[in-house]
C-alpha cells in the first residue's frame, strides 16, 4: 500500500474499528484458551513475555503474539489519528475542543509502551527466609530479615510484617518494614512480602525490577487527565 494511502486509511474510523476488533478477538481467544490450559500459561507470570514467546511454539503463543501485534496497530492508529487531528485543527480549535481525546490517546500509547517495556526488561527472584536470613538480589544489593511478625485470630491472619534492612556490599543502608500491599523500594528494586507462616516463622519475599510500571503509571495519569477533560468538554458543549 502506498504510504499516502496507508496514512489516509489510518486516519479513518474504519481502521480504528478494525484494529479494536482484532484486539478484542485475540483477548477473547485468551479468555477461552487460558482456562483450558492454565499450566501452559502459568509461566507467563514469572518470565519476561518476550522470552516466553521465544520459548513457546506458535501453536501455544499465536494468540499472545497476535494480541501484541494488534495492540501495536491500535497504538499506531491512535498516534496517526491524533497527529492528523492536531495538524488540521491546531490553529482553529480551542483547547477543550481539540486536546482531550488526544491526551487520552497519548495516555493509552504511553501505557502500552510501559507494558511493552515490562514485557522486554526486568528481573524477578523469590526466596523463603527465616529470621536472620539474607536474600541476595542484584548487583551487590541484598536484604536481611531481622524479625517476622505473624498475628492471627481464630478466622484469619490479621497482621504480618517483615522487619529487616537493605544491604549494599554487605553494609546496612536502610532498615525497613514490609507489609502486604506495602512493598519496599531501593535502587530500582521492589521487594514484596508474598506470604508469612508460623511456626516456624518464615516469609516468602519477592524482588523485582520493573521500569515499565512507572511508564504505565505516567500513561495512566495522562489517560485519566484526558478522560476528565473530555467529560468537562462534553458537559460544557451540551450546556450542562
Amino acid at each position, binding site marked *: 500500500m502506498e504510504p499516502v494511502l496507508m496514512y489516509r486509511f489510518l486516519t479513518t474510523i474504519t481502521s480504528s474499528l478494525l484494529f479494536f476488533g482484532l484486539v478484542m478477538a485475540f483477548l*477473547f481467544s485468551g*479468555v477461552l484458551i487460558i482456562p483450558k490450559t492454565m499450566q501452559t500459561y502459568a509461566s507467563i507470570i514469572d518470565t519476561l513475555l518476550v522470552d516466553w514467546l521465544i520459548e513457546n511454539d506458535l501453536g501455544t503463543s499465536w494468540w499472545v503474539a497476535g494480541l501484541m501485534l494488534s495492540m501495536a496497530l491500535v497504538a499506531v492508529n491512535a498516534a496517526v489519528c491524533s497527529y492528523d487531528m492536531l495538524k488540521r485543527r491546531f490553529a482553529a480549535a480551542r483547547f477543550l475542543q481539540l486536546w482531550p481525546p488526544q491526551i487520552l490517546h497519548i495516555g493509552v500509547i504511553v501505557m502500552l509502551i510501559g507494558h511493552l517495556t515490562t514485557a522486554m526488561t526486568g528481573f524477578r527472584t523469590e526466596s523463603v527466609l527465616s529470621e536472620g536470613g539474607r536474600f541476595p538480589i542484584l548487583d551487590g544489593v541484598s536484604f536481611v530479615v531481622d524479625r517476622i511478625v505473624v498475628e492471627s485470630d481464630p478466622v484469619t491472619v490479621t497482621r*504480618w510484617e517483615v522487619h529487616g534492612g537493605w544491604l549494599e556490599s554487605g553494609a546496612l543502608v536502610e532498615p525497613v518494614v514490609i507489609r502486604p500491599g506495602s512493598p519496599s523500594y531501593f535502587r530500582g528494586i521492589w521487594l514484596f512480602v508474598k506470604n508469612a507462616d508460623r511456626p516456624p516463622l518464615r516469609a516468602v519475599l519477592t524482588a523485582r525490577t520493573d521500569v515499565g510500571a512507572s511508564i504505565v503509571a505516567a500513561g495512566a495519569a495522562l489517560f485519566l487527565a484526558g478522560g476528565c477533560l473530555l467529560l468537562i468538554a462534553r458537559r460544557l458543549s451540551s450546556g450542562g
Partner: protein
Amino acid sequence: MSRLLFLLVAATFYALALTGGLRSRTFLVLGLLVNAGFVVLRGFANGRLPVTERLDILALTGLLFAASCLWLPECRKGEMDVPVLSLSIFFLFAALLQDEVNTVDQYMKSPWFYLYSGFFILALVSLGLSSCFGVAFIRHEDISHEALQYRFGLYGWVAYAASLIFGSFWFFAAYGTLWYWTAKDFWLSIVWFYYGGLYFHGRYHPSLAGVPASIIGVLGYPLVLFGYFGIGYLIKSPWSQF
C-alpha cells in the same frame, strides 16, 4: 436472616414504586432508606467502607441505581423508572445470593483497593444507566436519549478505566505485577476496548451513527455483567485483582 429482610424489603419497595401514582415516590424513598440502612450497618459492623465484598458492592450498586431515579428527570417523568429500578432490584437479588465474608484480607487494606472498588461501582451504575437510555432511544428515537446514553457511557467508561488503573496499582503494590494472565483480566480488557473502541468510535462512523451505535452501546452492559458474574463460574478463572 437480617440481610434477607433488609434487601427483600428494599427490593419490594422499589417494585411498589413501579406501580406509579402518587405513592410511587414514597415507596422509592422508603426503599432507599432501607437499602441505605443495610449498607451503612454493614459498614459499621465490619469497621470499614462496605466496598470489599461482593455482597456489599452489589447492595451499594442497587442503592445507587435507585437513588439515580430520584434525581434523573427522565425517571421522575416516568420514562426510565422501569429499567432503572429493575436493575436496582436485580442487583439486590444478586446480593442476596452472595456469601458474607466479613473479613478483609491483609492485601485489601489499601487505599488503592478502595479506589478501585469505588470506581468500579460507579462504572457499573453509569454504564447501566447508559444502556437504559440506549434502549429508550432505540424504541422511541428521541435524540436526547442518545445524548444521555453517550454521556453516561462516557462517565462509566472513564470510571471503569479508573477502576482498572487503580486495581492494577493495588495489585502491583500487593503482588509485584500490574497484570495477571487470567480470563477475568482479559474479559475486563474486552469491555474496556468494546466501549472505548467500538461504541465511542462507532458513533462517528457514517454507517453506524444513530441506532446501530446505540445497539452496540446497549450490548456492552451484558458484557460488563458477564465479566462480573460469569467469569469464575461459567468460564474458569483463578483469583485475580478484579
